[in-house]
């Protein structure tokens, strides 16, 4: 039917049912429960896919058990959902591959992440696991900011990075653990050297 021929009908707007906001229930690995709006969930690609696949109705979300998130504790999940609720409806940024990544930390996020590094670590881990792109960006930026004004030695201390020597030692230890005979041969070689022998074979 063409637009011109479509019937014109007067609509009583008050009669249109307002779509009810749906709140999903999630449970952390330490049994803390959270109610999160549908719009906030869209910030997490993982949770968004999960609830879409479940196809819950508003009755289901009330009557069925809370959706378990087994890898994340309540303290961390609280921060994650606070962030998602604050940023609900915002566009999810697309990574254009540029380096350095240009990330600004908004005031709300800065306050939210005013936490110890242990909890910040868990927050980043959760943002990655739940695929919350912008939360991952800002939390990674917070960690990146720790590098400002530091030398390589200071960075190794801040980020607990092994030096080349420590990496080499760890590699040797791993090789020896894999092949105990190699260690025996090396010890035998060292012993003969100590005894003044100049030929191993």
């Amino acid at each position, binding site marked *: 039917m063409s637009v011109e021929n479509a019937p014109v009908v007067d609509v009583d707007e008050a009669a249109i049912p307002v779509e009810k906001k749906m709140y999903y229930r999630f449970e952390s690995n330490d049994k803390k429960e959270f109610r999160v709006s549908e719009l906030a969930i869209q910030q997490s690609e993982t949770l968004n896919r999960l609830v879409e696949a479940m196809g819950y109705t508003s009755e289901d979300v009330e009557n069925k058990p809370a959706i378990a998130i087994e890898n994340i504790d309540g303290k961390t999940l609280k921060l994650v959902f606070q962030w998602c609720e604050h940023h609900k409806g915002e566009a999810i940024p697309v990574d254009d591959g540029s380096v350095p990544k240009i990330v600004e930390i908004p005031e709300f996020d800065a306050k939210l992440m005013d936490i110890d590094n242990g909890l910040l670590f868990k927050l980043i881990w959760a943002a990655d696991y739940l695929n919350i792109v912008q939360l991952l960006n800002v939390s990674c930026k917070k960690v*990146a900011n720790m590098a400002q004004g530091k030398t390589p*030695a200071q960075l190794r201390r801040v980020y607990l990075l092994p030096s080349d020597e420590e*990496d080499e030692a760890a590699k040797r230890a791993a090789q020896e653990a894999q092949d105990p005979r190699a260690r025996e041969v090396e010890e035998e070689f060292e012993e003969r050297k100590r005894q003044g022998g100049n030929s191993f074979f």
Partner: protein
Amino acid sequence: MAEESFPLLKLPVDVTKHVVQCMPDIERVIFSFCSKRMKPMAVSPGVRPRSFFVTIGENCEVLHEETYRDVNWDLDYYTGEEKVRVGPFMNGRGTPIIWDQPGWSMAERFNHVCDLFPNIETDKLSFYSDTFDLNLLPLFRFSDVSELSLPETMENSSFNVELLNYFKKVDRIEICCIRFGSDTEIDSILTRNLHMLSIQRYFEINFEELLLINSRYVYLSNPDLTGKHINMFLKMWMSGSNPQLRYFRFFLDDLMELEDFDCILTGTNFQTLPDTEESQYVDSDGDIVTIHGGIRIRNKDGIKGIVEFKENYYKIEFIVIDD
């Protein structure tokens, strides 16, 4: 108070890399020096505007400005032989960070920094000192060296000639140093098929040598050149010489007498263009430039050239225009 630590490597590898990619260029370069394992995380693909410097030891400085990389060799950057210094270029934020990188040669440190920006295709090299051991050059992994600059402080002619001969593939040469002892070496530079050749006042060439120049864009400052020489040069271009030439800028002696200018176009068939007439050409950096008016001449093949006198006649530009 002890500084709080963060177990960066306990994050998933992609996330660790994400953190490093959120660091500004300066911090990322410094991070790359933490260990061999960290270096690949700090690599920055693509060519993007940047603004920082890395000083390597006492003699080498790598400047990243916009999308270009300049490598300068100087006598002493006062950093210390085993040091690396990284800081903002010009008026950037913060102060430079300096540290010891013992056991790393200058070439190792230089190559390390270059590896972090793999898509920078060309380097511009400037030597301000002849203290550099040229035998070490093969150890440095330069990108294609497109431009070589020899400033006026470079007084060691054999060093300069050796450099020019080592970097045979450079496309742009800027010579401000004194003239080489050997005429043969001078001829070999002038006859190179370069994109750009800039010869400044201390490197004096005569008119016969001027005619040898085989570059597309030429910048020449030479007090010995007169209006008569330019007149002869233009006449030779009109008769078919220097077919490669796209642009020639002469800086003349500011004591040249005014009547000297009168002879620049003597005996040539020229036409003075009104200022309303626009002509366009592509400059040595590839940008399109529009000029107004000027004096038009043509060569034997009908190709148009425009002569412009600028800044009280002490600068003369000759531009070949593609119709």
